[in-house]
């Protein structure tokens, strides 16, 4: 029995290098950042345009640190784990439901997100209160149909939570360093980004016409 199914038109996820010391500041004590290089961990910036969900269409942006998934037998072993430290949506209702179910750390105010596809590039511009928060773009590789198993880690006070997430969609990924990100001095993100984050993603994911399903939520 799933805990929620969200259909999306578009999703992008860009991985940026950040200092491991900075990643540790964002994580609870029981989680360790993975390192893509020595002393360099991974900031994931993910944006989704959900066009069919229990609350109707809405957009979401999520900032996470990539962490190791909990080991499971082959077939249920997640490809990656993520700890979201900041999220925001265009829908108060979507935010309330996901907060209650998954304890994602949502910003209290609505954001607006613009998804612009042009010449093989998907650019997402996120605004809060009319002011820009972040622009992030990824570029296209070759499309394939895939299913990803992921694990999300959250905290509810001192309670450690873990959810299994499946994303099935048309998908492209590459490491051609063609995307980019601009973070604006917006109050929503100001306190969450200590230190430097690279401008260019080392990995660019782009999802289309897919479904995101949350399978379970566990305390561990």
């Amino acid at each position: 029995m799933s805990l929620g199914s969200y259909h999306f038109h578009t999703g992008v996820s860009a991985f940026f290098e950040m200092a491991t010391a900075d990643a540790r500041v964002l994580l609870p004590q029981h989680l360790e950042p993975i390192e893509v290089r020595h002393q360099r961990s991974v900031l994931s910036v993910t944006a989704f345009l959900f066009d069919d969900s229990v609350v109707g269409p809405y957009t979401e942006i999520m900032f996470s640190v990539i962490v190791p998934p909990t080991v499971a037998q082959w077939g249920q072993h997640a490809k990656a784990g993520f700890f979201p430290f900041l999220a925001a949506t265009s829908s108060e209702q979507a935010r309330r439901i996901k907060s209650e179910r998954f304890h994602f750390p949502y910003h209290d105010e609505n954001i607006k997100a613009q998804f612009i596809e042009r010449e093989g590039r998907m650019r997402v511009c996120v605004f809060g209160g009319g002011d820009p928060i972040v622009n992030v773009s990824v570029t296209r590789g070759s499309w394939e149909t895939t299913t990803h198993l992921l694990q999300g880690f959250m905290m509810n006070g001192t309670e450690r939570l873990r959810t299994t997430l499946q994303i099935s969609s048309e998908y492209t990924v590459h490491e051609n360093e063609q995307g980019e990100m601009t973070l604006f001095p917006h109050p929503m993100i100001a306190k969450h980004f200590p230190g430097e984050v690279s401008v260019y993603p080392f990995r660019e994911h782009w999802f289309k016409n897919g479904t995101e399903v949350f399978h379970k939520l566990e305390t561990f």
Partner: protein
Amino acid sequence: MTKLKDGMSEVETGVKSELAPNRISVDPDSLPTIPAAMEYDYTNFYFGAGTDAFALLEPFDDWWGQVKPAGYYLYELPLRSAPSTRVDVEDTKTGEIRRGLVNFASYNYLGLSYRPEVKEAIKEAADVYGGGSSGSPILSGTTHLHEQFAEEVAAFKGKEAALIFPTGYSANIGTIAGLMRSGDLIVADQYAHASIVDGMILSKSKSRFFRHNRADDLDRKLKDFDGKKLVIVEGVYSMDGDVTALAEIVGVCRDRGARIMIDEAHSAFVYGDTGKGIVEDVGLDDEVDIHLGTFSKSLGGQGGYTAGSLKLINYLRGFSRSRFFSCALSPVVVAGLRKALEIVRDEPELRTKLWENVACMQKLLGDAGVPIGDSTSQVIPVMVRDDARILAMGEELFREGVYINPVIYPAVGKHKSRFRMSISAAHTTEELEEGAAVIQRVLQRYGICP
């Protein structure tokens, strides 16, 4: 920046979608779909949280059981012959021995590993010294051969002194961690070899990486640091076959007061008028502080070296843990290396032949429309950029007469998969033509070339 009007987020699709309108749906009440094994890779089994140190072994083993017959078996295939331009290779999937394959997998750039003079020197040393050194180089493992060879390497490189290591890997970690300490800064090219990265980790220094060959990014990474700084580049980058932008990088190092080290694993003994390496080829030999390389590639043996000032080498002799906590190179290997170095010195025509062969292969592949990236060296990447199908292509190449290694993520970036081709001075034109024709034929089947 334009501000959005009130209302729902906007979707603007500037181009018509290439995708079918059908959504990829999931039955929300079903269990998670078991992913395709080939969509996983080694990195998915590197990290994993749990309480048992062996937690990853079982899922890895189950995954490996699926992907090995699907193509991963192409790695570590046992050779049944010398790493010559034609090789006999055991097909571990079928149990057959595939004979006479054109070999583009071995980095025997000058064909020296099996030269009769080299083999003869090895035999003579075996008669005198036996098989091994039986000791650390700082204790009993150094023979007269080791001392002579270190002097010969230093003389060849035009440096005051050289230190011999058991492998190129240990040369890098021993040199970097022997010199740099916690609180120092090391900045390496993002495509630096794993042994450089591991040396940086072992040194406990602050580590940064600059964008490949981008002196401007290197400058940004150096500019705000006041302490000891070491910059590390490679002469020829082993996965792309392109050459370091040494002049610009040396300029930044001088401006920022950083020392510079070059790893010439793939360029020493083949680049430059006398074979000193890239530093000689671009006329910057004296601008580089630490010269490092291997003996396993162009010399066709084993081991590594660091060359530089006498003070540098004396210091590293005392602080390169990977050297003095390893057994010294076998004197048999050293004897073969001494002869190989003598051949490099005495037969410059070998380098001429190598570059003729490189030009020949570049033309053959270029005329066939085979993509080879930005390579200008004897390392030629045949760019496939198709992670899902490259192993299947590798199997076809293997069965149709070419031995060449597929390189996939995480050795290179996602969808930067390629076959890494090593050209040797020993290849005949006929072998190059035969190999290029097979590569073209297989890649055509997959639409990689016209």
